[in-house]
């Protein structure tokens, strides 16, 4: 393990690491600035949403009236018309409550409206919201009222927990992969490109130690970068954002039943699954570096493997196969929030197994690796 400090030093003191750290902090700060700027926009957006719903009700109303004109005794149509006009009234009330202090009442009214929409749809009325969407919204609103947690805007929230979720979402959606590839994508291939691998090869070292130290070095660097990111979110969010609560509920489905997950739980699961995937990517990167000895093909092969793997496994909907699918955490939100006939941790074993496999193949490969 004499190599490990040397490996870490090589990257920690490189300009790349410095810029990457600055980049992450700046990105976090910029996102918060954006959210602060867009605070006033939240109400406008809500109003727009209500207006769109109103438009729908007006169009529906015209439709019902046309049918009634043709057949004034149509009871079904009369019923729908009645529900629809109560929907319109509720929407007007909702509109006047936007920006008000009393969020509990607003949510309660929203739920009343949604329940009425269900009634309307069951009477074969037309509405673009599906039952599933309505049920999700209903459950979330009720939960917020029960727990006495004020609702937060999903995109522009400046409450620390919700803001952290936004960042973590970016991170688990390719963010972590891009950061890791930028940071350690050339950890092995650049040694070949620069010929510096010859220095390592002409030292009294077991060659397998080179792979081991690079592998663990990469993991440490990844953890360090993740820690820097979370720390910067925490600091920036605490100083410039609002307090909020990490118990903020997120809607999830478990075996087709609506349940809740707290933001803290979501963040932990998200970072866990993406970190496991990162292990696989690091081992792939090392292996491909030894095969291609060149950064660009290595990078391409890693991304192509992930993409092709994901695309191929997306075709297969047979549930038990998920235990053998190492690519499922590339878009992890689905896996975490929709655990229908599946559990969030089912991909971890195969990924770890493959990581170990690739790591050992790389160790074997380096023994005979030559510089051409």
């Amino acid at each position, binding site marked *: 393990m004499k190599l490990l400090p040397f490996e870490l030093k090589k990257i920690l003191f490189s300009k*790349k690491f410095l810029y990457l750290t600055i980049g992450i902090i700046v*990105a976090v700060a910029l996102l918060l600035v954006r959210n602060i700027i867009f605070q006033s926009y939240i109400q406008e*957006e809500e109003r*727009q949403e209500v207006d769109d719903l109103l438009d*729908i009700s007006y*169009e529906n109303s*015209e*439709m019902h*009236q*046309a*049918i009634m004109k*043709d057949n004034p005794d149509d009871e079904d149509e009369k019923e729908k018309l009645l529900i629809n006009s109560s929907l319109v009234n509720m929407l007007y009330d909702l509109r006047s409550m936007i920006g008000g202090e009393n969020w509990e009442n607003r949510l309660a009214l929203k739920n009343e409206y949604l329940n009425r929409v269900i009634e309307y749809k069951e009477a074969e009325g*037309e*509405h*673009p919201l*599906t*039952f*599933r969407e309505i049920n999700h919204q209903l459950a979330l609103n009720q939960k917020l009222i029960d727990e006495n947690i004020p609702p937060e805007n999903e*995109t522009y929230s400046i409450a620390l927990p919700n803001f952290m979720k936004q960042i973590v979402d*970016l991170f688990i*959606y*390719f*963010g972590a992969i*891009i950061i890791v*590839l*930028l940071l350690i*994508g*050339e950890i092995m291939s*650049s040694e070949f490109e620069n010929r510096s691998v010859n220095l390592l090869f002409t030292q009294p070292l077991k060659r397998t130690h080179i792979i081991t130290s690079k592998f663990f070095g990469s993991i440490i660097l990844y953890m360090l970068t993740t820690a820097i990111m979370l720390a910067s979110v925490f600091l920036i969010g605490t100083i410039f954002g609002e307090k909020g609560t990490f118990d903020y509920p997120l809607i999830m489905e478990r075996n087709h039943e609506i349940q809740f997950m707290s933001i803290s739980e979501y963040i932990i699961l998200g970072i866990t699954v993406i970190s496991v995937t990162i292990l696989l990517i690091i081992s792939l990167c090392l292996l491909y570096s030894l095969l291609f000895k*060149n*950064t*660009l*093909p290595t*990078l*391409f092969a890693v*991304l*192509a493997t992930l*993409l092709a793997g994901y695309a191929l496994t997306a075709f297969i909907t047979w549930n038990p196969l998920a235990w053998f699918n190492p690519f499922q955490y590339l878009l992890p939100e689905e896996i975490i929030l929709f655990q229908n006939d599946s559990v969030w941790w089912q991909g971890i074993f195969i990924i770890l197994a493959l990581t170990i496999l690739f790591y050992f193949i790389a160790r074997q490969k380096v023994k005979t690796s030559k510089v051409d």
Partner: protein
Amino acid sequence: MLKLIVFEMKKIVNSSFFRILMIVFLLFFLAYYVYVYINTERVEDEIRNLETMIQTFEQFIQEKEIALESAEGAEAANIQSEIDFQREWVAKDKATLELYEQKDWKAILQQEIDQQEPQIGQMRYFNQTHTYTWPTLFTVETYVEMSKWMRDKEVTPLLPINSMSWITLYDQDMNVQGMSEEEALKDLAERSDKYSSTSIHYLHQFFGLLFSIFGAVFFLFLFGDVVTKEGFGRNGSIHLLRTQPVHRDTILASKFLTVILLSTIILLGTVVLSMLTGVIFDGFGDWEYPVLIYGEDRTFTLINLGTFLIKAVGMFMMILLFCYSILFLFSVITRRVLAAIGLTLAVLLIGTRWSGEFVTSSIAHFIPFHYFQVLDVVTNEMAVTMDNYNFSYTNGMVSLGITSLIVLIVTYGISVLQYRNSNS
């Protein structure tokens, strides 16, 4: 300049990574062709389906006739009417079968038009213009119009021909027993995704895959190290060029032009290849095949597939231009291939992800990242889903063009600054 471009091109084409990627591209093209070929619905399949249907009906009628012999009174009358009804169906199906055997598309389309057209008037009469349950008025109207277009221009329609395999963006709800709304819609969407292995239709399918962020990333990798490989600004073989009587800016410009030129050649090559494969295995297809372009407030226009594809290629070229300009910017700044490619990918990723949150703002259509789903932009499907009709083809071309230009100017500026600093 021309000599430089030829020199650059030679360097790129001779690199084994480029060659391997081109082979991968070709293999993917052929594999996908096989997939499309297998999934193409043929007239023979359609005829076979009809024949089995007729057979089952006839069998059913036979059974009923036997039952009729032993039946009496009201029951007999009941069975008789059932038989008559089925006979009518069989007769219709036989007529259709004959049309399919003769490949009389005009008549088949006419059948569909006659069947669907009356619905339009009815829906209008009841003000059902802005509904959400399939089939919406928009869906029926477009189906009839497209059938008329094909009838009038003598276009061979893609199979299967029926209104059960046509869905538009306004269909957001569907009542099917034993299925949730989402499942039913997904099922229908799959059925309306019709495959054809003829040249122009395959090109449509293939471009649908290629003209996305994935295609752009593939092209980025093809030329990922064109600037950094020679250590632009560092010690590297670029000094060979620098010590020749060529201006530094000319080198960068010639690299950029080479990349654009090679991309064009690859795209044209794809078109030619698709023409060849299609014609050899299936046929050319119809240039005039109708493509639905969404308009504001549930209006629409139809354009022909040929024009549609040309427009799409144009837009994808602009996307490549945009991507390359970012790549060149980062190449000049970082001088490392990993950093250049990685940062370009990061920008594209963050751009496409964040831009989604700005769709309703008034400047949304100036953000070039919105336009990466080329076919959706050209059909205006994106405008419909985003409910913002500023996302038009023209706005896309303009915003991509202007941003690329700005990025290129910045790149040039940085390159000049670097040169000055290295001289001082």
